[in-house]
Every structure is written in C-alpha cells, then in structure tokens.
C-alpha cells in the first residue's frame, strides 16, 4: 500500500513545502514535485494543488495559474477519475479551471485572515478523501487566506448540498454552522466541495498544516489516510 503524491509548484506557490512535509515526513509516502511548466505528472497517483499566491494573485486568485501547462495534465488526470485535491490557492485554481463549480471571492471582512477554525465533515460523495472521518465529525484546522468566500448561484448550491458534495462546512465549537463561525462570508458556510464524481476536492482550510499535535492539530491527517486506504490499496 503506497502512493505517489504529485505536488504542483506554480510561480508563487508557497505551501508546497507544507504539503511535502505532510506527505513525506508524516505519512511516509512518496512525493514528486511537479513544475508548472512541465507536461508530465511523473506517475503521481494523487495531485495536490498547494496553497500560496500563484502569479501573485494578480486579477483573481488562481486565474492565471489555471492556464499553466501542467494544468492540462491535471485536468486530464481528474477526467480519468483520479484524485486531485486543492488546498487554499489550489481550491481557487480548481474553480478557475472549472474542475469545481463556483468561485472564491474576497473575504467579507475584506481582510486576510489567519486563524484556527472548526469544520464539520458533511460530504458523502467522496469517500476517497473522507472515508477516515466519521460523518459529521468536528475538526480543528487552520485557515490563511484573503479570497476564500465561496460563491455560486442558488441552483448550484442546492445541487452541491443534494449530492453530498459539501465536503466541509465552517461551524462553531458545538458544530453549528452560524454566521459567527463563518470566517469569510462563504455561501452556506461552505469550506470545501467535491466534484460530482467525488475525485476532485477543493477546500480553503489547510489540512496539510494540521498533521501533527505539535502544530496544534492532527485533524488533517485522516484526509491523507483516506486516500492511502482507498487509492493506495
């Protein structure tokens, strides 16, 4: 049981190191570095689009990165049903690339926010990412973003809910999706979503920064362990 994670580095990516740390040092799996200008996924089973500020967030976060050469391969990988996950800036790239619906807009506070949040696991259509979590489980995971307000039209939101594709929701310590618990004004407190096939996940919080108690939480680890169990088996 072993997996190769491909971590994409766009110009301006900076959480690629966080992702490597999680994969290599904590999970003990293999990670390959995928340069944005390359055309080859180097045998990666799972592609991670990391956080950061690709292209300096010019125009809109993720808008330019989506056209990087490597994204053609990433899209093909996703279309083959293979797992692709985007954290923070990676989520923004996935929406811009239309692998996920909706868009991420500037936080309602219009300020960058770095903090710890509570998440509730609400997704049901993507066991490859969520299997190791209990349904409705509460997590403590950090966020750090300026453009993380998820928006989509009502029909799309209803569809996401109906198909169990709201993977994570911002909640308070008691598990309720209140306005106060919503750090960026996201529609329906949505923190992360999956595609219809359940093989593409995008989320604003940083599970890769929550993989060791020393860093304040290990609640991000089951996400990687789900992949290991489901894809690596």
């Amino acid at each position, binding site marked *: 049981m072993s997996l190769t994670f491909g971590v994409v580095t766009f110009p301006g990516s*900076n959480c690629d*190191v966080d992702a490597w*740390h999680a994969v290599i040092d904590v999970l003990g799996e293999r990670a390959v570095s995928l340069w944005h200008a390359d055309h080859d996924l180097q045998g990666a089973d799972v592609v991670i689009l990391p956080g950061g*500020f690709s292209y300096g967030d010019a125009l809109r976060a993720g808008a330019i990165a989506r056209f990087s050469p490597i994204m053609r391969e990433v899209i093909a990988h996703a279309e083959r049903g293979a797992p692709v996950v985007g954290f923070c800036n990676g989520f923004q790239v996935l929406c811009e690339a239309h692998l996920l619906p909706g868009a991420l807009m500037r936080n309602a506070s219009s300020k960058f926010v770095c903090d710890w949040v509570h998440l509730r696991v609400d997704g049901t259509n993507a066991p490859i990412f969520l299997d190791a979590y209990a349904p409705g489980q509460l997590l403590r995971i950090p966020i*750090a973003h*300026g453009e993380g307000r998820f928006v989509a039209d009502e029909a799309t939101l209803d569809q996401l809910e109906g198909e169990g594709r709201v993977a994570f929701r911002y909640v308070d310590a008691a598990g309720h999706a209140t306005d106060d618990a919503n750090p960026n004004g996201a529609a329906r407190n949505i923190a992360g979503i999956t595609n219809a096939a359940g093989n593409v996940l995008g989320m604003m919080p940083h599970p890769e920064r929550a993989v060791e108690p020393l*860093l304040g939480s290990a609640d991000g680890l089951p996400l990687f362990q789900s992949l290991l169990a489901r894809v690596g088996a």
Partner: protein
Amino acid sequence: MTAAAVPSPVAPRPGDPEITPALVAEHGITPFEYEKLVAMLGRTPTFTELGIVSALWSEHCSYKHSRPVLKTLPTQAPHVLQGPGENAGVISVGDGLAVAFKIESHNHPSAVEPYQGAATGVGGILRDVFTMGARPIAMLNSLRFGNPESARVRWLLAGVVKGIGDYGNCVGVPTVAGDVMFDASYEGNPLVNAMCVGLMREEELITAKAQGIGNPILAVGARTGRDGIHGASFASEDLSEENEAKRPRVQVGDPFTEKLLLEASLELIRSGHIVAIQDMGAAGLTSSSAEMAERGDVGVVIDVTKVPVREPGMTPYEILLSESQERMLVVAKQGHEAAVQAILHRWHLEAEVIGEVIAEPVYRVMEGDRVVAEFPGTRLVTDCPQYHPEARESAQYHPEARESAAIVALRARDPHAVAPRAEEADPAWTLAQLLSSPTVASKRWITRQYDSQVRTSTVAGPGAADAAIVRLYVYLDPRTGARIAVAEAARNVACTGARPLAITNNLNFGNPKKPDVFFQFREAVHGMGDACRALGTPVTGGNVSLYNENPQGAVFPTPTVGMVGLIDDVAHATRMTFTTPGDAIILLGETKDELGGSEYLSRVHGLTIGAPPSVDLEGERRLVETLVEAIGSGVVRSAHDCSEGGLAVALAECCVADRDAMCGAEVRIDDLALPMRSAFFGESQGRVLLSTAEPDRVLAVAARHGVPARRVGTVRADPVLVLSLGGTTLESPLAPLAAAFHDAIPMLMTRAATAAA
C-alpha cells in the same frame, strides 16, 4: 564588455546640469565634504558622480555619525559565523545548521505611504537574509505609532499592517512575532522595524564580496525603473522632461517577484556558479556595486546601458540611484553567465551581464563607450567622512540641547507624588484601563492578517526569536533603558524555553547633530553593549535610523532589539497563558518600589516621569539560565514575563490572552510591603510568572541559580482573577478583563481612517 580597452577620461554628459554650490547643497553634501570629494578626484565631479556620492555618503549608507559609537558593541562569540558588515549576521546553531538574521527600519517611507513603505521594508530585509544563503523562515516586526485616537494614525496603522501582511503572506514567510506601541511622540513619524530570520546549512554561507578578476557582474531580478530616486531633492528640469509631481518618490513592492527571486537566488547560491550576491537596496546599483568592490578590495566597471530598464530614456544618474525593488547584484564565475541566466529564466526573471571585476583599482561607470563616473580605488566607500558629534545631557537649559533639561526634570519627579484618580480606589478599574491601553491590549486584529503558519513545520526546529524594546525608559534614561531592552528580549526568548544566542538591533533616534539626541544615542548603544556582554549575546548586525523627527521634536529614542535563541527540544516550548487549573503559580524575581516610566503613569495619568526601574544584568543572566533549565526539563506549563503594566497586567494576560481557553487565578503575596501602585503596576525587571504542576522542581532550579522564587498562587477553573498584594485585594471576573484586552484595538479600528491630516 572588454575591460581592457583604455577608457576615455570622465566628462560631463550632454545635458547634465552644471555643478553649482546650490546643486551640491541640494544633494545633501556639505562644503567640507565637497572639498574632500574634489581632492579625492583631483577635479570637479560630474553630475552622475555627485549623485553617487550623495547616496553613498548619506547617513543611511555611510553611518557617518554613528559608526564610531557602534564599534563599541560586542560582536564576537564562538558561535558567530558572520558579524556586522554583511547583509545579515549569521550564527551557528549546531548540527551544521546556521541562522541568518537582521532587522531593518522603513520609518520614513512608511510615514509617507504606509502600505508600500512597510511592504518594501519587509522585502528588503528578506533579501538581506536570503542573500546570505539562508531560507527565510520567520518575520518579526516592531511598530510604533502616535495616538490611535487620530484618524491619520489609524490610517498609518491599517496601511502598515496590510503592507507587512500582504508582502510576507505572498512570499510565504510566516510573520510570527513582534510588538506594537503607541505614544504621541511617534505622531507623524511612525517606526516600522522589520526583522527576518533565515535558516541554512553552514557550508551554504555566501557573502557579498566581489572577487576574481574578470568575473562578470550581473543585474538580476526586476527591471530598473524611476522609483525612489532620492539623492536629495534636486531640481527636476535637469533630470528629465517629467515634472516633479510625476516622479515617484516611493517604491512599489512586488512580493510575487520577490518569491521568485528568493527561490532563484537560493538555487543560484547552491549551484556554485556565483561568488557573491547582494541586494540592491538603499541607493540601489550604486551602493551595492561600490560596497561589493570595497569588501573584495577590487576594481569594478559597470555599463548602465546593459541594465534592464522599465522605461526608455533613463539617465545613468537615474539607473544608478533607482531604488526599484526585488533586484540583486551578482558576481558570477567567469564562463558561468549562461548557467546563471538559465536559472533566473526558469523563474521568469531576467539576468544581464552589466559589468566586470577588474584589476585596475577603480570604480568606473560607463554609458556605452563613455565614462560617466570614476573613483579611485575603493575610496568612494573608505573616504566617507566620519563625524564625532557632541553628546550632552544638561540639567540647565541649553539652546542646542533643548530637550535634555526637560528630561532631567521629568526623571527627577517622584511618581508617588502623583495623586491617584478617584476611580483607582478599585484596582480592577486600573487594571482594565491598562489592559485596554493600545500598547498592552491584544494585537490579534493585527496578527490575524499575517499568515503565521506557512512553513510551520520548519520553524519549530531551530529557533525562537523575539523583538522587544522599552520606550519610555530610554527616553528617561537611555543607558538603563537600552539595558532593559536587551534584558527583556532575553527574558522573552527564554520564556519560550530557548537559550538566547545573539541580537540584531535597530537604533531609531532623532537628529544626531543635536547634542541631547546624540547623548541618547551614545548612552543607549553603551547600555546595549553592557547588556549584551553580561548576557553573552553578541551583536551580529543591525541598522541605524536617524532624523526621526516631527515638528514637535524627536521621537522617543527607540532601540529595537531582535534576539534569536535556540530551543533544544521543541516538545518543551511553552506558552504564555495558563492551561491547567490546579497548577501552581510561581513568581521569579523581586518586586521593588519602581513606578517610574511605567505604562500605569502613561495610561492613567498621561505622564512620562520618574527614574526607570533598575536592571541587574547578572541577575537577568541567572534568570535566563533558570528559565532555560526549568523549561528544558519539561516541568513548566506556561511562562510570561512582567513588563508593561507590571504584575497585575502580566497575571491578567496569563488568564485571558487565549480567549478560547481562559483560566482563572488566585495570587497572594501578603508580605509585600510596597506602595499599592508599585506592587500592582510597577515594572520591576527580572520577573517572570510561571505555571507548573511541579513547583518544587522549579523552585529547586531557581535556588540553584540564586534567583529569588516563590510559589504565589494557583490556577483556578472558575473565571475570576484574585490578586492580593500587601493587604490590598484586586478581584475581578475574567469577562470584563478579557473584553478590555481583546476589544480595545478592534473597536478603535472600526473608526474612520484617512490620510488627510
């Protein structure tokens, strides 16, 4: 470029303005300095040369007033790999690893344009660290603002914080610590000091020394534009058609390019293709090239027409003095130019050969075939005049030392003679006042805007760093104040469980030509030196920012200390807040009758008076040993030093600072025979509040090091704070204290902010 061709003699460029005494004066060059320059050249300088000298002989680049005093600082220790004189200091932290760190100010740019001023300050200090070969792993900053009741101060604060956040966040370096203080003396002249800490392997250390005759010099990174050309405020018609109003005086930072430059530079340094690299910082290409040549004691020739520019028609003067950001000067190994360019191109950056290291002892600037500037040897750098300004503090009024008589008088005032306000009958009222003082209150409104976690995995390993200064004390007594600044930084670092190793410092003072200002400067440097010697923490670098004045006079003299320490076992790193009801609370150090210069007097009475607290440097050293040993043995659950607001504020912070996990506490020292205000709010040095489940073990460690220590109370589960000192009891539920502490700055910042004065 062929250096062999014998260049023609230096001649003015067509269109250059005539060198007149007025033009010389506009460049900030005194008649004495001008004579020195003419003697050095043996002729009248060209306009380009005048610009070069105006930059290199400016206070900022030359340290002409401060250098002799700085030389008194201790800089040596076995673990110091690189002391002052390079882009950043470097210390060894064991296991073949080294830490590079430095602090820098961007006070003046931030006063004009807070967002870009602060952002480019962060950019500059990042480059100073990664040009040593280190990967930046943490940013810190120390900020001083005027009274936040003013809409303009709020505009400055919001802009500076956003500037620091946007830049650091985008580059992907966590901003992990710092301090923010407010005082009317900083009105109009905020202080923005940024510090960067980087990590490397010892063998990756590289310096900025030009070497190897025939080696090519490359300009790397962003293109050169017309930004930030200062060279004093010369007449604009002489320079270009653009009118004055259009010439940008501030630089605009581009953190995205910085991130690419960071990655490319580290790759370049590791590639073995280069011999030296330096940031083009203040005075841009001119100072970086001249300083590199001076360090290597070699000649250089540069052709400005080879420099990639952003706009057509830039003059040599402009290209040499531009302070466009995100640029580097690199000396490559001969024949490795293409390899250097390949690395830069991979990161979407430019690299052009613009010059060469030459044997001829000369600093020469070409514009194509024409020589536009030429200085003999390295005298451009070494011949810079040095001054020994008068330093005087006098109790008598003196026209040239206006402030010192006032300071002497303020210092002599007795704080106990200040009548308490009626509300102070309840010490809980006073405590809430202090907790809501912007200087004391929670800075979370600020720190939430910084990404403090990116790369967290790497930060946890090697170091802990902190920046601290004590503002009022330095004003009242610069020597004691600066000693306290270093001691407090050491205490803060030790409170995390780390052993302090070395400091960097930023000296923010007023006009050095005023004897009372220079007195403050000299005394503060001496005080800092005393403390560094006593604590075994040498100075590996720093920065000096003078002329911090506003129409009312100089800012409070503000030496900022950035200290780096090493934690042996990260598992034992402690927090500052109480975590576990039932834990014993221990107070290390002694509480004395010391109310002078306190935040209490400042916040509650609007006074800066009295003598600052005494500091026993040998005692501070023993305190640090105690903390390092006790925390290292894993028995300490939290540690927090007593600083602004004294024991009462420190205890309250231990209870409420972590809003999600507040703990109550009860502390009693019944035999404390001190005036009530000194007991609760006095700022005696050398004190730390610890919480532990094993008080006897902590007390034993303290006893072994001869540090006064006693168990003073217990962490409680119920949300109340009880502090009983010498018969007076302060009792308060936590909620109002937490509200005072956490809501003060957010409430302030919801109010209007504007650039308009």
